[in-house]
């Protein structure tokens, strides 16, 4: 008996407390969700490929779409391959930084017609072999691939079995490095670091401790702002010199990075598609935002906002 009475008393007390509190302000019904002016945007599914430079692009475009166009932006963290798969099913509307990928282009744009090219991002992608800056300074002629054999001994590691080590990295990128080493007659062995973090960490320590390292890398990349790696020149790229992957003996081509959108999204009349299409900026812009994220530890949203606030004219041009 006693217990039930206590329960009731407690309940009553709690209820009074609730009623008392309701009288105060700050409840949720008065804080309405952010409402955009252009309500016709709807949802915008933006793929986020897992590298920081891409995040910079995606969150700048996404933030503008959300705040200026009133879109509901869904960021979807996906590898390139999976992101392209999502065009057909409507799960992905846009990929905002695409590095070539002729096989995916062929399959999804030409054959399935589920995706369209949405123009260039303005960024130029450079792929190639790089050495840490201290090496370029100490051995100035190392940046010519003809001299690499002279330095092969420097690059020996526990993994390279007596030859020089050429550190390949991110499994997402197509490399011809095994063929290149063979066809250029280099006394090197390709060793797979296995992931971008592994590659960056290796270069970071090579510069810090002044240990020799040569490896596959690319720009734009936030790490370039921290350690400006120096490119090693392979025989210059000419059209078609990489046509036969087994015989390739020339440098990688420059990539003009572009944007890909799903066909459905392109035809939907969404203002977000116009934004994606018009979006274009420089390598330096991207590295700035990527640096905010990777070096300064800002959230991608905050980094994007900071850049947009500092560059209102560029942003305005994409929204026209």
């Amino acid at each position: 008996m006693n217990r039930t009475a206590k329960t009731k008393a407690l309940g009553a007390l709690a209820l009074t407390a609730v009623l008392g509190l309701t009288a105060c302000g700050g409840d949720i019904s008065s804080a309405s969700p952010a409402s955009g002016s252009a309500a016709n945007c709807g949802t915008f599914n933006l793929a986020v490929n897992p590298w920081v430079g891409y995040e910079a692009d995606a969150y700048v475009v996404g933030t503008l779409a959300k705040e200026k166009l009133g879109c509901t932006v869904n960021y979807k963290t996906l590898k390139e391959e999976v992101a392209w798969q999502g065009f057909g099913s409507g799960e992905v509307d846009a990929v905002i930084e695409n590095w070539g990928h002729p096989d995916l282009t062929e399959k999804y744009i030409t054959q399935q017609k589920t995706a369209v090219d949405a123009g260039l991002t303005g960024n130029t992608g450079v792929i190639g072999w790089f050495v840490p800056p201290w090496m370029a300074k100490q051995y100035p002629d190392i940046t010519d691939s003809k001299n690499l054999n002279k330095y092969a001994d420097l690059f020996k590691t526990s993994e390279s079995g007596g030859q020089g080590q050429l550190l390949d990295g991110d499994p997402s990128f197509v490399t011809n490095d095994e063929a290149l080493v063979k066809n250029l007659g280099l006394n090197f062995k390709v060793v797979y670091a296995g992931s971008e973090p592994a590659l960056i960490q290796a270069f970071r320590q090579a510069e810090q401790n002044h240990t020799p390292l040569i490896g596959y890398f690319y720009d734009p990349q936030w790490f370039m702002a921290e350690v400006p790696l120096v490119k090693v020149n392979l025989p210059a790229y000419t059209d078609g010199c990489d046509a036969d992957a087994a015989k390739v003996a020339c440098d990688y081509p420059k990539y003009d990075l572009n944007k890909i959108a799903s066909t459905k999204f392109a035809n939907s009349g969404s203002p977000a598609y116009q934004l994606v299409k018009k979006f274009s900026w420089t390598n330096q812009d991207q590295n700035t935002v990527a640096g905010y994220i990777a070096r300064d530890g800002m959230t991608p949203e905050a980094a994007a906002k900071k850049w947009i606030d500092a560059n209102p004219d560029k942003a305005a041009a994409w929204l026209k």
Partner: protein
Amino acid sequence: MSTMATDCDRVDTAAIPPGGARERASEPATRPPTGGPRAFTRRHWRSLVGAAVVAAWLVLWALLRGTQTLELGGAEKTDVHVWFNGLRDGFDAARANSAFFEYVVQPITNGLNGTVAFLQHLASQPSVGRPVPEVGWLGVVVLLAWLTFTFAGVRLMLLVAACVLLFGFFGYWQQSIDTLIVTFVAVLVCVLLGLPLGILTARNARVAAVVTPVLDLMQTLPSFAYLAPLALVFGIGPAAAIVTTVIYSLPPLVRITEHGIRNVSPVTLEAVASMGGTAWQTLAKVELPMARRTIVVGVNQCTMAALSMATIATLINGPGLGGPVLQALQSLDVGSAFVSGLAIVLMAIMLDRTTTAASERSGIEARVQRGTGPAGLRGARGRRAAVVIGAVLTAVAVYLSRTYLALAKFPPSPDLGTPLAKAVSAATAWAVGTLSGFTGWLKDAVTAVLVNPLESLLAQSPWWVMALVLLGVALALGRWRTALVTLACEAVILGTGLWNESMKTLATTLVATLLVVVAAVAVGVLMGRSRLVDSIVRPVLDAFQTIPPFVYLVPALALFGPTRFTAIAAALAYGVPIATKLVADGIRGVSPVAVEASESMGTTTWQMVSKVQLPMARAAVVLAANQGLLYVLAMVVVGGLVGGGGLGYLVVSGFSQGQLFGKGLAAGIAITALGIMLDRIAQHAAARFGSA
């Protein structure tokens, strides 16, 4: 083995001194009493086969090194790989207009996505027309605390409340609740599928024969290998993430349920049958209640496995804590990766303790209801009142958190995450700076002494030599059936076209397993002999078993660079805990009589460990080696991310590059074949040498 056998004999003589000693004295060193070379051969044919195999292998390796190794270049593909690619493309093309997709896959996908979205709007993400979820953080915390109190008691309620609040203070409130939701739905699906399947396999040998190898495959095929096609089938998002999780976490539940049902006493079953119970009655009234404790253990293991998939599922946009882990990895932010990984560890501890306690309590309650329990009626009534009060409080908290923004959105301060992340980053930087000289030396030494020679021996031998050697090992350690399994697995590996890469992976796996056993014995003996050491080390081991490996990849890279040794180090971090625990339990299980007896004879600590405790705990050490091996193998793919090369790298690149999908899948299959082969050989070896 021969030294071990004599050690064992010595223990026996120590335990029973007079008779044994006399027997041994009268029967000197040459043990086989009925001498002669033929008897020797019969007795030791296994060792002879082993020695002959090794000798022939070394000779052939020296002669034929580097020929017929079946090496395949990085971008080269075989017909099988191309065929897998075609299969995937066919899948992709069929999905738009296939009845199967429309009427089977689509409803499953929508159902899973709908359930997750419903729960998310309820508790973690802004609901329609609201800037916040239907129930805010206060409501969620109180609700979870109340549920824990009801099912598991006061102490765990405090644990759960503390953990859930920490998720918020770390700055990962929404991601943590998302992970909780995904894990909950995945475990629910597992229970719905796994319980009936477990019961069926326990009762029907034919079903068991089909199901068991499928479970093997589900547990050993790396999820990286089928992640992309799963996203193709179930779409990008929660549904595919849940299916991935279910594939990995269903097997333990089915296996443990099967085990539980099988172990219901046959006497009881006979009694029920004699009383005329129907099959259904037997199941519902006898078998399931009697196996309940075991089944809850199965659910517990299933939950842990589901949680370990949290990071992987993020790669196909599964919601949850994996997101911040991977995000931090991209910018090499060790601190943030650690904090989000710590949230996963806390969640594992919380769920583990709660499910365990709930199972124990439900046992007590069943006894209380029958009136045989110690607590009596007063305790039960008091608890019921507390539960009711809790329900009212929960309702109030839910209402409040629906109404006030401050109680709905987790407050940004106190922020424990940022300072913790900074501290961890600083500590890591310091440790790397201090240790990197030593670790570099260690890496070079182990690589030169163990990894390189073994890899050369395994991967540079012609393929047919290696195939015969493995068969010979299987015969020497196991039975003819082990050899048959080995043969089948070899055929599969050859079929994948990745023989050379498989042998490289085998080499690093064997080195890692060796190091796991050495470390496990060293630490396990200390833990087994001292309660204090045990209580200090065990939580560390627990943490390493549950923290996502992605968290410690960056420090490992900083210490060892992208090398095969880094892959081995990552495998050690994952494999040592389980093996150490097994060794510690084995040492503790050594009969105290034997220990006292040898103590009374004045043995030193070293003699005690090496001559008494370790030999007597031999079964545990062998089991630890077997489990260590499997855990090491589970890390092959993660090893591929940090320079391990071999099959692991191929699986990763297959996930990352469309053209290499088939090759990656083939590499996954090769890992599975390697795993099954090693497991069977180790199991039979364990059965033979562990029980001696």
